[in-house]
């Protein structure tokens, strides 16, 4: 279900994107927050580009090197993960969640899902040339 971002959040996104484009993104750099705005729109991530979305969301569990982690259970590695061969699979997992992983469909726009899936599928040792499109994401919702 696509949820249009409010004008205020769009503006914040734009500002965040502008701020980011002017700086080198380092792996150890703290991710910027979604607009401090529980009041306006607490339910959306501000960032628009795949690298920043990965750093703000995915690396919390899958880790900065995308190699996952092992404790009593485990978070799967996204690095070199053959399950990413079809772009539909990671798109579905992001939208709907899987096992303990929450669904992000309500948190992210189609464009953001495209960005983050394409980023993961083209980094961390993954080299899948085909790109996910917004139309495909819209269909999967």
């Amino acid at each position, binding site marked *: 279900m696509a949820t249009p971002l409010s004008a205020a959040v769009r503006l914040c996104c734009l500002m965040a994107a502008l701020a980011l484009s002017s700086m080198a993104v380092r792996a150890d750099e703290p991710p910027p927050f979604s607009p401090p705005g529980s009041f306006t*729109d607490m*339910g959306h991530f501000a960032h628009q580009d795949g690298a920043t979305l990965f750093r*703000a969301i995915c690396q*919390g*569990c899958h880790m900065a090197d995308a190699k996952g982690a092992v*404790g009593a259970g485990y978070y799967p590695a996204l690095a070199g993960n053959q399950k990413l061969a079809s772009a539909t699979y990671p798109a579905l997992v992001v939208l709907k969640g899987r096992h303990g992983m*929450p669904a992000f469909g309500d948190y992210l726009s189609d464009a953001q899902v495209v960005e983050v899936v394409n980023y993961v599928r083209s980094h961390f040792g993954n080299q899948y040339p085909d790109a996910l499109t917004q139309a495909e994401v819209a269909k999967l919702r």
Partner: protein
Amino acid sequence: MRPVQNPLAISRRDLLRKIGVSAGAAMMYQAMSTLGFARESDYRGPIELSGAPKGTSILILGAGMAGLVAAYELRRAGYTVKVLEYNHRAGGRAWTLRGGDEYTELGGARQKCEFDPGLYVNPGPWRIPYHHHAMLDYARRLKVPLEPFNELNFNAYLHSSKAFDGKPQRYRHIYADYHGHVAELLSKAVNKGQLDTELTAEDKEKLLESLRVFGVLDKDYRYTKSFATSESRGYDSERGAGQMPPPALSTPIARDALLKSGLANYLVTPFDYDLTPSMFQPVGGMDQIAMALYRDVAALVEFDAKVTAIDQDERGVSVTYVDARRGGEPKHARADWCLCTIPLSILSEIPVKVGEPMLAAIQSAPYEASVKFGLQFKRRFWEEDERIYGGISYTDLPIQMIGYPMAGMNQGGKGVLLGGYVWGTNAYEFTSMTPEQRIRKAVELGAQIHPQYPAEYENGVVVSWHRSPFTQGCFANWSDDARGKHYENLCQIDGRIALAGEHASRLPAWQEGAVLSSLDTIGRMHKKIVATA
């Protein structure tokens, strides 16, 4: 404790979204608890398990509240009990961090808590409502002393970074002024006859009379600066004695500024059924109830046991596990029956021999993100400078809350604040940082509410629940849809295996849910054992 997305009825989801939009994560989370879940505890006194067949063994997986309660009760009933626990401690999420404690999160970042003696933070549950009868009963039976937890503090802050130039407002000001302005507006409408189709003449009279009291209005139904409103919202300078100067009356916040701020949307938070007085906390830390249970069953518990497979046949259950710290050869534990309290986030990644319906249930619960900070300060400036004793301030900043310690109030010395309790998108963003980055950010943000932060801050710890090696999340945030489909299957006894924990309750994230789930399940398991003996 239950946040964001629960799609079942569109209307419910939309309602939650509206609440979220207008009032933020904290409110959203409060609302979830009232909309979908039956909150009342079903506890009916200590469980009676009589006639346990001699020599029957039960293996319990997990030594959190659910596992400990089961071990405590089943052993008393005469069963042979063994408990396997992944951590090197008991309690699970019923956990308190004190000076000297170490915690390594997933990804390997290690923190050492440097709090002074007597200071602590509860990174998991931190409060017990009066209607959580089972928790209160165990505290009483195990002689764990409790003290009040005051959720609502009229002198704590409500803060919006976008209103009043970012200056935090006292809860009592927002509370009194919102009621005053609403009462004034409503009485205006009544007096202009705008509600004549709704109200009889007598209704109008009664309503006006109550509005005047409720909103502290003057004889003309106006909410203004006066002795009466200062008696309600507080004075600008306090009342003294003798030749001390008279008190300065305070000025209510203008209606438009108050409405624009959105701060009134926070007012209802402490009035959620789960958060209203009386609430309690164990003296010395939330782990005290779990520790009292643990002391009774310590000899039965094996720590550092990482379960890798759960198998069963018609004769019994076999669990494979490895030493979580040293590794080595897999070990096996056999028993006649098994009560598994492992969080579903973990269990869904372990081979379990149960039927398809229960397996599907195990794989259907998303675990929520949440982050909690404990920050130690050189002095209790919130008490000394700002007269905030316990309670919580709410903010639209990513830290979302600042909780003030209920213990040691007005004793001076150092103190530990709950420097943030974070849900939703901000919780993911905090989790994606290193612990040092998270704490730096929490101190930086908290300084917008308490400017004393930078000068007084000493040390801190942070727990991001998605990085917790033993839960991979905060709690099972069932959607109504998934609960409808899977809950019954989750709560069955599948052959010789049954599950328990907050995830198998209608009080998700609360210890009461874990305890009730445990009692309900062992009661049914006991019946089945007795019937088939």
